[in-house]
């Protein structure tokens, strides 16, 4: 970099602060340590808010939750060695779900790198396969550019986590600083604008189709294309299903809503995809939990696939019309082209198809029967009604996550925050912290199981320290429920190691952290506990002692076609 007289002389730590400011970062999640003391010292002199988590995994999940709730890049800062390795699970989760997060890790001084120094770890090597990209900055002169690129890569194209490893001597060194110009990488040019010729084919296919279905995913939410999707589906009268990551991209209150697809998808969604003659997949990657047995997936359909990442297309499923492009931009074009095409009265044309879906819906709706013992579905159903579907919901992973996906109906994007791809237990509580910080005026609820809540329970202290009024719903069934369900159904009820004995008294635990603890043991207490908890301005744990061996249905056994579901 050329030095000009007017350039300021700054330390690495000061350069980092300048870049954070230029990126509009006002909050970072982190945990200090020896290698990053200089950064923390500088951070103290800025307006950037630092949220001190209790474990570095929590820092990344919180930054992830912050990003999903705000639509901005989440940032976390941790020290070298164990600080860095503790972030790996969080990074892998953000990577699988394409969430823009920048992870800043401390590193030992450059002259010690490779020496097995104290708290040294090759975090760039470790995270190479679970980051979109990563950097080890070895010269302070390269720092500004690397950081600027990191933010640009994290949020552009198919977003994802980017890690920047910062050796201590680089942070302390001084150089002339000039804010780098716009990032321009010759080897990285995401394709935002779709091929219009391909889109025109989609319009004609829609005109010909008798039984079309739209299958939307997280890409629609990430590209902020929910409104365009909704407009398109309503205009073309096409029923919509989504992946877990796509929940909220299309309003669940719309009559065209089919519910979620996949292993725990609704009967009508899975049957519709099994029977459709045109599947329009937008911003999805055909995960195995969605497709089941790939040979039988949508086997009567022409498949259209729109995604910004070319590697997602034709990876698992053969496609008739591939479109590489941004989901929102593609949908905007489709809406315009659809208006120009004039395909006639589609309501009439779709009548039979919509009727058939209605029959599926009536035949096997999502259902449960609330008797003497609290049903977990009833808790979520009641939560949905009490919050009018307006809360930001995070989840842990397992049955709690699937029941939430089924019984909390999302009308808006950015309201369902879950570790979809990695399926990472311990995600929900720190993600709720991040979401609450991004949206201080919104109600944020973490729906958890008694197993997964204990994976990052230490973040209760973070929530209480920053007076975050997040609500934690624990569906306590005394089991690692999802694995137990598999054991019940496919392993002759041998409940090997899935009994959660000796969980803490969650009410006392909440109190020990300075939060409010509530418990419901009978169905008639559910509404009062939820009401009291939701109305509190404190961090609240609400524990529900639920039916121990309740299963999530429908369920598609692994590797089976998704139309072959186990029903209640």
């Amino acid at each position, binding site marked *: 970099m050329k030095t000009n007289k007017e350039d300021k002389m700054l330390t690495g730590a000061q350069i980092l602060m300048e870049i954070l400011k230029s990126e509009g970062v006002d909050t970072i999640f982190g945990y200090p340590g020896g290698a990053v003391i200089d950064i923390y010292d500088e951070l103290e002199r800025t307006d950037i808010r630092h949220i001190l988590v209790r474990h570095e995994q929590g820092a990344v999940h919180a930054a992830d939750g912050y990003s999903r709730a705000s639509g901005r890049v989440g940032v976390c800062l941790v020290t070298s060695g164990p600080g860095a390795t503790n972030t790996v699970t969080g990074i892998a989760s953000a990577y699988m779900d394409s969430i823009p997060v920048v992870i800043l890790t401390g590193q030992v001084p450059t002259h010690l790198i490779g020496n097995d120094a104290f708290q040294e770890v090759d975090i*760039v*090597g470790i995270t*190479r*396969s679970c980051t979109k990209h990563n950097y080890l900055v070895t010269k302070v002169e390269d720092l500004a550019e690397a950081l600027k690129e990191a933010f640009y890569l994290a949020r552009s194209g198919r977003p994802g986590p980017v890690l920047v490893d910062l050796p201590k001597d680089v942070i302390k060194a001084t150089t002339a600083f000039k804010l780098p110009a716009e990032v321009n990488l010759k080897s990285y040019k995401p394709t935002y604008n779709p091929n219009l010729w391909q889109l025109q084919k989609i319009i004609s296919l829609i005109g010909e189709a008798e039984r079309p279905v739209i299958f939307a995913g997280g890409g629609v939410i990430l590209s902020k294309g929910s409104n365009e999707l909704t407009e398109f589906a309503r205009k073309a009268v096409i029923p919509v299903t989504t992946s877990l990551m796509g929940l909220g991209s299309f309003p669940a209150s719309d009559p065209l809503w089919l519910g979620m697809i996949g292993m725990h998808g609704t009967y009508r969604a899975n049957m519709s995809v099994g029977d459709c003659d045109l599947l329009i997949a937008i911003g999805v990657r055909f995960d195995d939990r969605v497709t089941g047995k790939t040979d039988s997936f949508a086997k009567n359909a022409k498949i259209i696939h729109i995604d910004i990442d070319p*590697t997602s297309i*034709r990876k698992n499923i053969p496609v008739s019309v591939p479109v590489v492009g941004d989901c929102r931009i593609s949908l905007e074009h489709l809406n315009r082209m659809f208006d120009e095409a004039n395909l006639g009265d589609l309501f009439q044309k779709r009548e039979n198809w919509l009727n058939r879906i209605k029959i599926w819906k009536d035949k096997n709706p999502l259902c449960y029967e609330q008797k003497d013992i609290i049903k977990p579905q009833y808790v979520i159903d009641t939560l949905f009604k009490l919050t009018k579907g307006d809360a930001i919901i995070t989840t842990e992973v397992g049955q709690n996550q699937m029941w939430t996906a089924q019984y909390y109906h999302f009308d808006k994007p950015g309201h369902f925050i879950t570790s979809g791809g990695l399926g990472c237990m311990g995600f929900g509580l720190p993600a709720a912290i991040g979401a609450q910080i991004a949206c201080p005026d919104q109600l944020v609820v973490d729906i958890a199981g008694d197993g997964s809540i204990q994976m990052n329970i230490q973040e209760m202290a973070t929530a209480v320290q920053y007076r975050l009024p997040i609500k934690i719903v624990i569906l306590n069934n005394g089991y690692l429920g999802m694995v137990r369900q598999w054991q019940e159904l496919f392993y002759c009820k041998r409940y090997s190691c899935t009994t959660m004995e000796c969980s803490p008294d969650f009410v006392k635990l909440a109190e020990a952290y300075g939060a409010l603890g509530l418990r419901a043991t009978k169905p008639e207490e559910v509404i009062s506990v939820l009401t009291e908890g939701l109305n509190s301005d404190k961090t609240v744990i609400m524990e529900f002692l639920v039916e121990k061996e309740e299963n999530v249905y429908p369920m598609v056994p692994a590797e089976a076609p998704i139309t072959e579901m186990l029903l209640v």
Partner: protein
Amino acid sequence: MTEEKHVLTMLVDNKPGVLSRVVGLFSGRGFNIDSLCVAETMDPLISRITIVTKSSLAEMEQIEKQLNKLINVIKLRTVSGPRSVQREMAIIYVMAKNGQRSEVLRIVDIFRGKVIDVGPEHFIIEVTGNDEKLNAIINLLRPMGIKKLAKTGTLALFR
């Protein structure tokens, strides 16, 4: 699915860790590398990597897309057809006792190879060509006893 040989040539940033990203992509997704060559190009900021791999066409499509997705991969092409040239070099340590020495030298001559080291009972031979040619000379020398063999792996360019 039938597997075919594919030759990939790519320009990448000449930075630490780039090779590891490329190679990690193959190992992480269960693809195998048959040969690999890396060196600086005329521009010292850019290296060329040539990889030979066997895979089905569907796997190949995925490999190419994944490689293109790497931030440090600037340009990628699969090399095939008459518009491409491919070369590989082998260094062969072949036993050559009395009575066999002239036979070895004749073979080397036919393949336009070079003797780069001589001992009382061996030659070390350098030979360059496409992999068919290298296989042919190796097969001819095998009866004499090939003690050691080093190959560069394929290099490729478009004309």
